[in-house]
């Protein structure tokens, strides 16, 4: 179990504000902290990482106490064993792809595993390139495995995909899911992108002006319950295409890309990137036995 409870005063453009957090979640879960910018998401992650110190609180990750203001205990950032990926590029510009990974390597691990990691995220052949020669998606992939090489106890993702174009973002979301499925590492994703949170997180904490105002499964949090559809999916518009009198939306829903038809009325305030709920009523689906079973 992970227990995170702290108070920290933040200085926002609107004045001083308390970041007041008290959450618990099981180990091995991929949880998300969702909120608008300025809500305190980044400060939250920095406090978990040990880069910022709260005024008071108690932080326990994977059974280890990292911070306890009552006992004046504060484990240093180096000793916390975290993987941290931020939206900025934090790859070391003077080191190659391989150099960045070797720097993250610690003595007790097998050095020969580096090529496997490079191959896993599709950077084979780019080992001797410098980070500035990589695309945005490749940079974040490298950052991801550089963080994982340490075998961290917890992976902290601070809007890691926000600077990427939509295709790269979708690919990297799949990558994160793949790595999560493989490692089952406790992961905290901070994001203001609803589709991303919906796709990746098992549990969401909604952060608003320094406080967690809601928590639950993404479906419970995001799906507007006014719609009484039988099937409901939340997705993001990737493309809007007009075909004669029809508006065709290409949507990213979960791990799938699908096309639906929209009326002009529905189209009124939709644009590429909009978050939408797709639902259908009065609909008898065909149920077929899955090939996999």
């Amino acid at each position: 179990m992970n227990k995170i409870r702290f108070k920290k005063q933040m200085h926002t453009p609107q004045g001083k504000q308390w970041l007041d957090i008290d959450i618990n979640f099981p180990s091995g879960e991929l949880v998300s902290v969702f909120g608008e910018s300025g809500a305190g998401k980044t400060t939250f992650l920095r406090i978990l990482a040990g880069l910022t110190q709260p005024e008071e609180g108690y932080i326990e990750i994977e059974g280890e106490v990292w911070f306890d203001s009552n006992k004046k205990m504060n484990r240093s950032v180096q000793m916390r064993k975290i993987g941290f990926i931020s939206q900025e590029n934090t790859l070391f510009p003077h080191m190659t792809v391989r150099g960045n990974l070797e720097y993250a390597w610690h003595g007790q691990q097998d050095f020969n595993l580096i090529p496997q990691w490079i191959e896993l995220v599709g950077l084979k052949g780019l080992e001797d390139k410098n980070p500035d020669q990589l695309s945005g998606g490749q940079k974040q992939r490298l950052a991801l495995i550089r963080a994982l090489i340490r075998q961290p106890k917890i992976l902290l993702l601070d809007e890691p995909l926000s600077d990427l174009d939509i295709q790269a973002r979708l690919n990297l979301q799949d990558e994160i899911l793949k790595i999560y499925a493989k490692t089952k590492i406790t992961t905290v994703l901070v994001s203001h992108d609803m589709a991303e949170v919906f796709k990746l997180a098992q549990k969401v904490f909604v952060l608003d002006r320094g406080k967690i105002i809601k928590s639950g499964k993404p479906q419970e949090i995001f799906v507007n319950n006014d719609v009484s559809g039988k099937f409901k999916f939340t997705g993001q518009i990737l493309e809007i295409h007009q075909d004669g009198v029809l508006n065709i939306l290409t949507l990213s829903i979960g791990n799938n890309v699908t096309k639906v038809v929209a009326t002009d009325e529905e189209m009124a305030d939709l644009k590429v990137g909009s978050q939408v709920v797709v639902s259908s009523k009065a609909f008898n689906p065909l149920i077929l036995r899955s090939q996999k079973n």
Partner: protein
Amino acid sequence: MHYDLQPLYLTFQLAIVVTVILFAVSIPLAYWIAFSKNRFKYVIETLVSMPLVLPPTVIGFYLLLVFSPQHSLGHFLESFLGLRVVFSFTGLVIGSLIFSLPFMVNPIKAGLQNFPQELIEASLVLGKSRWTTLYRVILPNIKPALLTGMIMAFAHTIGEFGVVLMIGGNIPGETRLASIAIYNEVEALNYDTAGLYALVLVGISFVILLMFYYLNRKPLKIF
């Protein structure tokens, strides 16, 4: 025309010794100034930069006073360690260290302050100590600032006159630097010899600064 190369040789010997020592001293000092949250750091910053505004003779005067055998520090150094600072090469080194300190510290400090904080944090998050982060991540990325500091300190030491004259005097082969030799020769009306020394200093200063600006013209390709 009579001339010897001793003053030029001595000048470069001094510049090299001073640059090497300053480089080693200035990295931790600049690091502390750049990152410390100590509220007295502005005092240290001011002291480091004092030689930029003070007349060199003032620094030389105080050094002469402090290190003279009549003063307790000078007396201690001489009687217990057998070290005479005034009118010796050691004195030149000490005077030059103080006088050229801001020329080395300030560019390095600027380089450190402009270095992206997130890269430092990325290294700490990977479990690396501050020391490892400094020499594996920060220093390799601020080579232009380090080079600027070294060149400025080296060039400035060559160009010294007031401090070294006050503390070193004018002893041939020991403290007579090129800048002092020029003054000496002019006083003795040996304009040809003075002109030769002067020309050598102009040439060398030009080459050093030319190299510096050339390297900084395209820093990314060089480093």
